């Protein structure tokens, strides 16, 4: 087990810089999830930590040891790949044991270790099977077993759940989280799915275009997004963004509607964006912040998503699941002032 630290990490391909000096400290035993849209540099960062990509600038330390120029095998890491990278011509036992090929320990100990790992993953009776005789979830477990058998300081997961169907993904998500609680190794997990990030992480690193946008616990990034990108990336459906101007005591929206807000760190007359999560924007019977016409209704069971046209643009709000409004109906929408987010229109930075 070990800490991991990135210092001004830079990656260039030819003249193109894809990672612009990112820094991060991961504590021992922490579960950190890198999340972001494709091309944001999250996988590149992971592959640099693994040693599969060369470091163009900056430092990577695993447990205080500078590993920039170490071969992957010498970094004390293990990696689980998106396509699992388990060998189709080898049995599960050989696949898991492949990670121990170079380990200097007696054969009997290796066998024992393989059995132990298989037992933890609940596949002790599948050791003689070939990968093509396994289900998707079982293959995923073999891939994790291959990594576990090495007992590395840091586990690296590169979008390991994206090849699974939705139900299995939810299940494996839980299993990986349980596994982490049990073995306690440091884990770096890359995904493009914000739900995975929210549900599994101790801390989330949100990346975009080779920059870290925000680092924080799932609740921090959800409730205190650092900028409009984070605000819209985390949480589904996406946060409603309403442009306007800061009046000192509130926001005057582009359509002239005024919304009162507690004091914010903004100058009067500044161009701002008001962010309202659909979860916080509720359909109400009483007089709300503003009203609009229902365009589309998406029932989810417990509640209903309502697409409401307000003065020419559309916002997503939430209504009760039992008595949802009908399309064409006029509804009042309300939100708690504490759940309203304000961002600078030009920079996108949050205005606390």
């Amino acid at each position, binding site marked *: 087990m070990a800490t991991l630290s990135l210092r001004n990490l830079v990656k260039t391909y030819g003249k193109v810089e894809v990672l612009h000096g990112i820094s991060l400290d991961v504590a021992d035993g922490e579960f950190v999830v890198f999340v972001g849209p494709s091309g944001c540099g999250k996988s590149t960062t992971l592959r640099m930590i693994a*040693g599969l990509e060369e470091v163009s600038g900056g430092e990577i330390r695993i447990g205080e040891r500078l590993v920039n120029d170490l071969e992957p095998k010498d970094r004390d890491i293990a*990696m689980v790949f998106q396509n699992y990278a388990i060998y*189709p*011509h080898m049995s599960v036992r050989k696949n898991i044991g*492949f990670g121990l090929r*170079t380990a200097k320990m007696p054969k009997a100990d290796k066998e024992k270790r393989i059995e132990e790992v298989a037992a933890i993953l609940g596949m002790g009776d599948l050791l003689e099977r070939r990968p093509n005789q396994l289900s998707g979830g079982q293959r995923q477990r073999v891939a994790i077993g291959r990594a576990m058998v090495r007992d590395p300081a840091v586990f690296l997961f590169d979008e390991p759940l994206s090849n699974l169907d939705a139900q299995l993904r939810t299940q494996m998500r839980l299993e990986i989280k349980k596994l982490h609680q049990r073995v306690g190794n440091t884990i770096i997990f890359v995904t493009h799915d914000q739900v995975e990030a929210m549900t599994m992480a101790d801390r989330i690193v949100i990346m975009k275009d080779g920059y870290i946008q925000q680092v924080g616990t799932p609740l921090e990034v959800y409730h205190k997004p650092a900028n409009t990108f984070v605000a819209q990336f985390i949480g589904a459906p996406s946060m409603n963004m309403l442009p306007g101007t800061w009046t000192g005591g509130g926001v005057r929206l582009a359509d002239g509607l005024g919304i009162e807000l507690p004091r914010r760190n903004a100058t009067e007359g500044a161009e701002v964006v008001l962010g309202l999560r659909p979860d916080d924007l509720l359909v109400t019977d009483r007089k709300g912040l503003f009203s609009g016409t229902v365009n589309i209704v998406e029932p989810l069971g417990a509640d209903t998503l309502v697409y409401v046209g307000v003065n020419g643009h559309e916002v997503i709000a939430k209504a009760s699941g039992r008595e949802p409004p009908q399309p064409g109906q006029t509804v009042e929408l309300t939100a708690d002032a504490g759940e309203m987010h304000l961002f600078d229109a030009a920079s996108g930075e949050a205005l606390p």
Partner: protein
Amino acid sequence: MRRASGFARAPRHLEVWQRNGAMRFYHNLTISQKQIVWAWAFLALPVLFYVVIRFYPTANAFVLSFQEWNLLGARSFAGFDNYVRLYNDPVFWKVFRNTFMYLILGTPISLVLSFVIAYHLDKVRFMHGTIRALYFLPFMTSAVAMAWVWRWFYQPVPIGVFNNFLASFGFSQIQFLSSTTNALPSVLAPAIWAGLGFQVIIFMAGLRAIPQSYYEAARIDGVSSWTVLWEITIPLLKPTIVFLVVFSSIGFLRIFDQVYNMTTNNPGGPLNSTKPLVLLIYDTAFNGFNMGYAAAQTVVLFTILLIVSLIQLRILRDR
């Protein structure tokens, strides 16, 4: 409006169709039956072609192998005479050995060479396309032209390139095509070289199909590149290897062009030391006009090809 009238007319056309007996029959078929009808309609021509051009002559050759025929006169049945004669013919056994020499030397050498080339070429980025094209060029070249060029290479000093090269370093001359021991490998060399390009391309396609993450996972596990080659690359290339072994074995068992063109003044010589089965068949049939005997040799070749292919498929097949 025009479209509307078009729609209105269509059913009347259908009625006319349906009145016709054959069309009514077709109309009443299920979709899958219709697909079968169409499949056979398209297959009819190639099937006919194969029956007339391939299967009929093949069957005829089997029959002919039990007959005497000089190509012009009447055929007469001879029972197993042709096969008995074959069994007692020392030239046949010499040729039989030669054919297997082509196979036993040619297939492994060409496979190992092409794999080594493909394995390394796969890692080369510089002028990759050009180098690959250079390897493929001999495969596109006429075997006749190539055989004659190589024949010229093998000539003694001052004509032959190889002997000139040896002479410039003071080595003694090598009798390439005129020695009974050197002739067969000398003929085999251009045959291997000619097929190399094709095998390299197939191997490279096989190598490209192996996911990069398999190698990355192995790198993280820290196994040697030798282990990666033997335990990951080669096992995963098995389907490619099976295909190439069978394909090139059949090629070497049927070798003819190179031998015939490199030994034209004495085909299969010197002293039958390079003569393969196909050349023997050609000789028996079109120089000796002994069609029955040639047919018997053909049947033997067919049997060898069948057995070798079946054995290879069995050994190399995935369990």
